[in-house]
C-alpha cells in the first residue's frame, strides 16, 4: 500500500524467489472479479436492490449467497458491489497516478527550486493521515461517489510522485534527452514523448497498487457510513451486515471474501508486474 516499495533500498532486479504462480493467481482473482462485475446483470438479474419477502434466506440453491434483511439477493449485491468498488478504485487510482506523475515529472525534470517546493508539498501530503482527512472532508463536504474519487485520488498521489521523480532524475542525464534538448524541444514535449514512456512500467505498478489501496479506503469509508448510500459497495454491505453477524453470517462473509480476494489479487498482480517489467529496466 501507498508505495512502500519505494523505500526498498534494493535494486529491483535483485529480487529473487518471485514465484510466477503468484502473479498468475493474482491475475486470475482480479479477472474473476472483473468478469463478475461486468456480467452481473447476466449472472444475477438486473436489480441488486430488488426486495422480496424471502428475508434472511440461508445460502442455498435459489440464493447461492443467501438474502439479506430486506430479502435482497446477496450474490447480486456482491457482484454489483464489485462494479462500484472496482470503478471507484480504478478511478481514484488514475486520478492519484495522474497527479503524482505530473508533479513527480515536474520535480524530477525541472529540478532546483521547483523540485524543493514540490517535494515539501509531497512530504506534507504524505504525512497527513489520509484516511482521517478523507473522513473530515466527507463530513464537511458531503458524501457521493465523485467526491469520494476526488478525495481518495487527491490524497494518494505522493506514492507515485517519488517513483516518477526518481526515474526523471536518472533520465535527465541520458543522452537521448540531451539530444532532444539541443534540438530545441520544450520541456513538456520532452517529458511527454521521452520521459513518460520510460516511466510507464512504474506507473502500471502504481495504478495496480493504488487501485487496491483505493478500494480499501472506499470500503473503510462506506463501512463507517460515509460512502454513497445509493450504491451497494462492499463496504456498505459489510456495514449493513454488522448487526446480523450472529444470525445471518452470510451477509458479512461473502462481501468480505470478495473484498479481500480483490485486494489480494491486486497486490499479487502489482508484485508480479513490478518483478517482471520493472526489474528488466533496472541498471
Amino acid at each position: 500500500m501507498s508505495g512502500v516499495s519505494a523505500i526498498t533500498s534494493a535494486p529491483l532486479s535483485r529480487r529473487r524467489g518471485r514465484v510466477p504462480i503468484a502473479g498468475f493467481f493474482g491475475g486470475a482473482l482480479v479477472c474473476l472479479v472483473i468478469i463478475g462485475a461486468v456480467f452481473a446483470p447476466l449472472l444475477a438479474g438486473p436489480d441488486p436492490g430488488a426486495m422480496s419477502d424471502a428475508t434472511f434466506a440461508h445460502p442455498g440453491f435459489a440464493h447461492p449467497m443467501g438474502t439479506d434483511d430486506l430479502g435482497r439477493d446477496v450474490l447480486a449485491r456482491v457482484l454489483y458491489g464489485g462494479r462500484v468498488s472496482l470503478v471507484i478504485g480504478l478511478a481514484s487510482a488514475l486520478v492519484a497516478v495522474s497527479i503524482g506523475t505530473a508533479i513527480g515529472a515536474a520535480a524530477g525534470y525541472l529540478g532546483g527550486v521547483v523540485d524543493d517546493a514540490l517535494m515539501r508539498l509531497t512530504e506534507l501530503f504524505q504525512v497527513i493521515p489520509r484516511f482521517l482527512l478523507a473522513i473530515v472532508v466527507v463530513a464537511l463536504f458531503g458524501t457521493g461517489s465523485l467526491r469520494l474519487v476526488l478525495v481518495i485520488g487527491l490524497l494518494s498521489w505522493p506514492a507515485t510522485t517519488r517513483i516518477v521523480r526518481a526515474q526523471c532524475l536518472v533520465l535527465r542525464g541520458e543522452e537521448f534527452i540531451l539530444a532532444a534538448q539541443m534540438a530545441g524541444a520544450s520541456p513538456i514535449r520532452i517529458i511527454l514523448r521521452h520521459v513518460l514512456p520510460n516511466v510507464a512500467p512504474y506507473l502500471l505498478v502504481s495504478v495496480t497498487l493504488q487501485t487496491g489501496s483505493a478500494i480499501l479506503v472506499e470500503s473503510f469509508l462506506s463501512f463507517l457510513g460515509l460512502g454513497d448510500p445509493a450504491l451497494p459497495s462492499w463496504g456498505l454491505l459489510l456495514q449493513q451486515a454488522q448487526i446480523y453477524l450472529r444470525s445471518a453470517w452470510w451477509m458479512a462473509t461473502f462481501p468480505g471474501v470478495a473484498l479481500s480476494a480483490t485486494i489480494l489479487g491486486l497486490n499479487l498482480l502489482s508484485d508480479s508486474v513490478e518483478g517482471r517489467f520493472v526489474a528488466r529496466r533496472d541498471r
Partner: protein
Amino acid sequence: MSREPNMPGSTISPFISPWHVARRSVLAGLGVSALSFPRAFAAAPTRLVGVLEETPSIINPAITAVISSYAAGTPVYNALTHIDAKGNITPELATAWDISPDGLTYTFHLRQGVTWHDGQKFGAADVKFSLENANGKLHPWGRGAFRAVERIETPDDATVVLHLRQPSAALMLGTDSACGLILPKHIWDGSDILKNPHNLAPIGTGPYKFVEMLPGDRLRYARNETYFVAGQPYFDELVFRIIPDPAARVAAFENEEVDTIYMNALPFSEAPRLGAEPGVALKRTNLRGAGFMGIFNVREKPYSDVRVRQAVAHAIDRGFIRNNVDKGFTIKMLGPVPPASPLYNTALQDYEHDPALANKMLDEAGYPRGANGIRFGFNFLWPAADAGVTRMADVIRQNLAAVGIEAHLQPLDRAALTQKGYIALQFDMICESYGLGPDPDIGVERLYNSHNIFNPPVPYTNVSGYRNPEVDALFDKQRVQLDPTARKQTYDRIQELIWADVPVLPMFAYDGPNIFRKSVVKGLYEGSYGNQESFATAKPQA
C-alpha cells in the same frame, strides 16, 4: 480509591485509571465507592449491567428529552407521579393530589421523609423551583405540558399548588418521568441551569446514586440506602456500559457481558431473535406513542398539492415496510395520533397500496411522465444513524420509481439534517422517529398547529408548513375539554381533517422491545417507557 488531583497531565499510570478528567464531575461529599457498602453484607455486591448507545453529553431529563439522558438519569431522579404500563397515574414524590372542579387548581401532597442523595431534605420548594425553572421552562415537552400554569404556591413544605390560566387536559400526564423529574433547589438555584456541572453529576432522590461516568466506557451507580420505598432498590450496583456499535451491543448481550438492553439501544431487527432465546425475557413498552413520521414540505409544488401527497401515500407500500422493517414491533398508524392513545380515531381509512391508482392521480393532478418516465423528484432526508429509516428508504425509492417519482436519498447526520432539513427547509420529506406522547397535546399538536410555524424555522415544530384554520380552532377547543368523551369527539374530527390533507405520512407506530436475562434479574420494564427505567423494582435472581 484515593482522591487524585484533577489535572490533565497528572502522572497517573494509565494501567490504573486513565480518565481523571471525568472524575472532576464527581462531587465532594458524594464519595461513595461502589465497593464500600455496609458491613452487614458479607457477600459480593450484586450488580446489574446495562448498556447505553452513546456517552451522554448531559444527564438531566428534567430539561432535555435526549434519550441517553433519560436512560442515564431516570435511576437517579423521581417525579411527582409514576404512570404504569396501563396508563394509571400512581404516587411517587406526591402521595395524593386534588384537582379543583374548574380544573384551574392542582394541589399535590408531597411525601414526607424523602432525602436527596447528599442528605438534604426534599420539600415543596424543590418542586416549585424545578417546575418553574427547569421542567416548565426548558424541557421541550414540559414547556407544552406546563404551559397553562400561571403560578405555583407552596403553603407548606409538604404541599404544592399549581394555579392554571385555563384548564389543561394534558397536565397530569406531564407529571411523571417524561418531563416531571424534580431537581434539588439547593444544588441548582442561583446557577445557570444549562451550564451547571451537575448536568453530568446528577443528585436526586431516586433509587440509585450516581457514582461516576467514564466517557466512552461506562457509568456507575450505587444503591440509595435511604430510598423512600422500603426494600428498594434490590441491586447494590448498577453499571451501564457505553457501546456505540449496535452489533457490539447485541454481541455483548449474547456473551452475557451485559444483562439488559433497553429499547433505544436494541436494534429492533435483532429483538425477535434475542427475545426467543431461552432465558431471555422481552418486554414491550408502549411509549404512549412513538412513530416514524414522514413529514412533507407542503410549501411548494408539487407537494403543496394534496392530490400529490395522497398519491404518494398510495404509492408507498407501508404494509411491506411494517412487515419487513423492525418486524414484530410495528403498529399500523393512520392519521396524526398514535394508536396507543385513547384519543386514536379507529374509523380512519387507509390509503391502500395501489401504484395504478397513484399513477392515475398524478396524471390527473397535471404531472405527466416525462420522456424518461419521470414526473418529478423527491428529496428524502433522514438521520443517517437511524437504521430503520435507512432500510425504509430503499423500499420507498422503489415504490416511488413505480409511479414515476425519482427519489433522491439523503441520509444526513443530526447536525446536517437540522441545518438542511429543519432550518433551510430543503426537503420534500423528512422521515424520523417522533415521540408522540405523553399526550397528543404535547407530542402531536406541535406538528400541525399553524402557530407552531416559526421564522426562522425551529426543528421538531410544524416544519411541514401546514396551515388549516379549522384544525387550529379545533386544537384550541379540545385543549380545555376535560370531559374525555367530548375531547375524543373533537380530536376525532381533527384526525379526519389532518388525514385527508396528509401533510405528514406516518410510516408506522412502534412498541419498544426491551430485553433482559431472566436468570439475572426480574422486575424490569414494567412502566410505560423502556427508556425511562428507574431500576427500582429490578430484583436479582439466583
